[in-house]
């Protein structure tokens, strides 16, 4: 059994050791075992990846890794047995099952029930909060993990992906058509053709961060040919304003020629308009002539601050009623002239929000409250007044079609960079789709008198369209998941607004997730997990669409 008789071999060159059949079969079986083990380890890695992320996003966390591994195995068993049971059950019903099949199905059924029960039990054991909420989807990023959200990143992803698709698809398909349908015959041109093909293979292997660097130079700075992004040489759809704030806190705008124009002086302006374009009544007052009044206001506010600080230190109970009384007393004592209704309520709210926090938190809350009071006081004393030496801030009103050269760190630059990243993928996928169209269809079209382009336009491209669309969707899902090039283009900027035009600052979902994942607080890791689930759900939709298209439109050309 173990060792077969060694048959003497005729020559030295022919030295095969003969092994018994049983031994060889054992080896074969062992290898199958190894194979299944390897495949299971790969699948387990995938399952672990998904379960760990899902459990973190829904507040099921572990102190150590062993339970997490067990959870992964549990989910794996659930998945495997939930596939195995429906597959095997019909055989059992039809009495076709062998003994081995019966054992397998019993094991699978038991495993399914036990693992589902365990999973339900674990779900009951959740300790943390659910991080993937509707609130999370529609909120903007925040310093606090409970309040943070992914909305601007989602919109940024949609916008960059749209730019990427609109540019990558025409260029990619055109290149693929050139490479597949118009193969040149001339020797030199054939060399060029091969060179372009090799070049595309190479481009597909370039790390995406290198594309980010290219995009930074080629799109963000346009090779420095049009000045710097802060001082663009060419702009379209933007109006520049000088913005003033009156003492009542009303914003006034004065149009200026361009970004580099000198600041406007309030003395030169004849007509004032608010941001919404209405004419505003404004009194221009020289600061010197109102010096006494300003000083009085400052003194009153300072007195209020001091007496509030004192009162808060000796407050018996830190609640709304106590605070309101304290504010009221301090208000009267300081001799403020501002209308107390509303302002006092705001002050109380600000102080309450800080709670009984001490030190910096409390001081910051008081500072904010005093700012509110100061504004109210100045408004009471100088309604509709703008001091003649007020300095404006330069603001821009941009149209949705705002465009500038160089592009700067905006959505357009990000989308075009992603276009560079996915272009080779689109080209290669389209080439494969075109190659799958049988020669006979082209020959038929040409024989009917169509020109080569007409053949491509009316015959080859329509036939290859499902394949091209599948490739494009897969390429787009790559673009959506790409973080490295966007990181170079946009940097980690704290974006709390939705991009209004293609030049606006932006962030994308993978970058936002990276940002959260690299935070030290653990709560942000859970936020990142919630973001990942959302991102993967979007990608799953994309992939499902691709598979659906492939299956719906799969025509057999033979």
């Amino acid at each position, binding site marked *: 059994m173990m060792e077969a008789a060694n048959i003497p071999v005729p020559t030295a060159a022919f030295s095969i050791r003969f092994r018994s059949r049983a031994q060889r079969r054992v080896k074969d079986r062992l290898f199958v075992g190894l194979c299944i083990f390897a495949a299971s380890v790969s699948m387990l890695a995938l399952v672990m990846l998904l379960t760990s992320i899902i459990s973190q996003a829904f507040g099921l966390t572990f102190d150590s890794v062993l339970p997490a591994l067990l959870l992964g195995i549990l989910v794996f068993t659930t998945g495997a047995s939930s596939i195995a049971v429906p597959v095997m059950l019909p055989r059992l019903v039809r009495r076709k099952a062998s003994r081995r099949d019966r054992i397998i199905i019993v094991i699978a059924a038991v495993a399914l029930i036990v693992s589902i029960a365990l999973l339900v039990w674990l779900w009951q054991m959740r300790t943390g909060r659910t991080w993937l909420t509707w609130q999370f989807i529609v909120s903007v990023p925040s310093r606090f993990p409970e309040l943070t959200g992914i909305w601007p990143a989602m919109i940024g992803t949609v916008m960059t992906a749209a730019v990427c698709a609109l540019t990558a698809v025409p260029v990619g398909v055109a290149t693929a058509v050139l490479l597949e349908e118009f193969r040149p015959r001339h020797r030199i041109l054939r060399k060029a053709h091969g060179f372009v093909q090799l070049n595309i293979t190479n481009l597909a292997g370039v790390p995406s961060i290198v594309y980010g660097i290219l995009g930074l130079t080629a799109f963000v700075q346009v090779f420095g040919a049009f000045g710097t992004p802060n001082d663009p040489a060419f702009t379209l759809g933007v109006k520049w304003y000088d913005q003033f704030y009156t003492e009542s806190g009303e914003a006034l705008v004065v149009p200026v020629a361009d970004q580099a124009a000198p600041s406007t002086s309030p003395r030169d302006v004849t007509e004032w308009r608010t941001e919404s374009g209405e004419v505003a009544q404004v009194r221009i007052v020289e600061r010197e002539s109102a010096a006494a009044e300003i000083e009085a206001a400052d003194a009153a506010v300072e007195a209020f601050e001091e007496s509030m600080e004192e009162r808060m230190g000796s407050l018996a109970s830190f609640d709304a009623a106590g605070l309101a009384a304290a504010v009221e007393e301090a208000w009267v004592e300081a001799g403020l002239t501002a209308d107390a209704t509303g302002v006092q309520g705001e002050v109380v709210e600000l102080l309450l929000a800080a709670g009984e926090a001490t030190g910096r938190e409390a001081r910051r809350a008081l500072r904010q409250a005093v700012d509110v009071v100061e504004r109210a006081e100045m408004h009471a004393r100088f309604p509709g007044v703008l001091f003649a030496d007020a300095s404006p801030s330069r603001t821009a009103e941009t149209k949705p079609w705002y465009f500038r050269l160089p592009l700067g760190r905006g959505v357009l630059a990000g989308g075009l960079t992603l276009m560079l990243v996915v272009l080779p993928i689109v080209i290669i996928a389209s080439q494969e789709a075109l190659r799958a169209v049988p020669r006979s269809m082209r020959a038929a079209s040409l024989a009917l008198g169509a020109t080569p382009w007409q053949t491509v336009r009316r015959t080859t491209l329509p036939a290859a369209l499902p394949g091209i669309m599948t490739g494009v969707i897969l390429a787009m899902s790559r673009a959506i998941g790409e973080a490295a090039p966007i*990181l170079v283009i946009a940097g980690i900027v704290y974006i709390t607004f939705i991009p209004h035009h293609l030049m606006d600052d932006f962030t994308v979902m993978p970058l936002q997730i990276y940002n959260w994942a690299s935070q030290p607080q653990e709560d942000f890791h859970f936020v990142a997990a919630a973001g990942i689930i959302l991102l993967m759900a979007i990608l799953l939709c994309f992939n499902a669409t691709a598979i659906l298209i492939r299956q719906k439109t799969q025509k057999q050309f033979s």
Partner: protein
Amino acid sequence: MTTAATVPAGMSGPQPRGRRRSVRLRKVREAGIMSTLVMGGVFSLLTTGAIIFVLARESYRFLGEEDVTFWGFIGGLQWNPLLGAEQHFGIWPLIAGTLMIAAVAMIVAVPLGLVTAIWLSEYAPATLRSILKPVLEILAGIPTVVFGFFALTVVTPGLQWFNRFLPGDHQFGVYNAASAGIAVGILTLPIVTSLSEDALRAVPGSLREASYGLGATRFETSLKVVFPAALSGIIAAFLLAVARAVGETMIVALAAGSSPLPLHEEPTAAIDITREVQPMTGYMVQIFLGDASNFGPEYFSSYAVAAVLFLMTFVLTVIGHVIRKKFQQVYE
């Protein structure tokens, strides 16, 4: 550039229905469309050209800086551009970090991927393969930042569990090469599996049948007949996976850490996978996140690092391509 490849003769004949169109106009239109298509091809060439131009220009500027020499950059063992009084720009600590992570990744991905590929192509029933292949595609479509998160929150704590068996000076930290390498390995696993499986399945059935006919088992057939026949494709897949691992960014940025290996003090650090390492891509992320003042030597050094990275992946891709083209056996 080139005229139409296959214009059939006699297309100027009268058409039975529809408007008659001028042949000359049609020819002009075809030429216009052709040149549009050629622009697409030219665009891809321009992209490569622009990458090389940008990297070369900024690397040249970097090498022109004070304290930076070409040989010091190519041969130096100390990389210390951000901290300390003196800046050192020797690329090897970064290259060592990249290679270390790529090596760990390949140790994870190649055996698992290859065995899975052989099993999928030679053993697995068709139904199972039709399930597993799309699953592999899904795995390949997962964004890399997800793997980075996985490395940081699952793999690293998992490795730290082993710390109790390790000597005190070789403990797994929060950031380490092994964790990032394992995650990169899982990332490249579908690439290795899918491409190797394609190569194995491209081997014609007649070879297998011949082998069975000579009395070989399935194991012997797969390992001694099919595997050698598909070797060129498998090596190409391996090289592609290495190129992917070398260029991987988000995983190493999250899980590998941010201090380059101190090769000038202890050269053996290059094989210690418990250490925090900074690979080339990790350094680039650090710079572009704004850790460095713009337009100092440390800023331009990231371009030089990118140039080295580009060269590495370029060489790997071209070798893979050549192997696939030259050593591909054609069976008829």
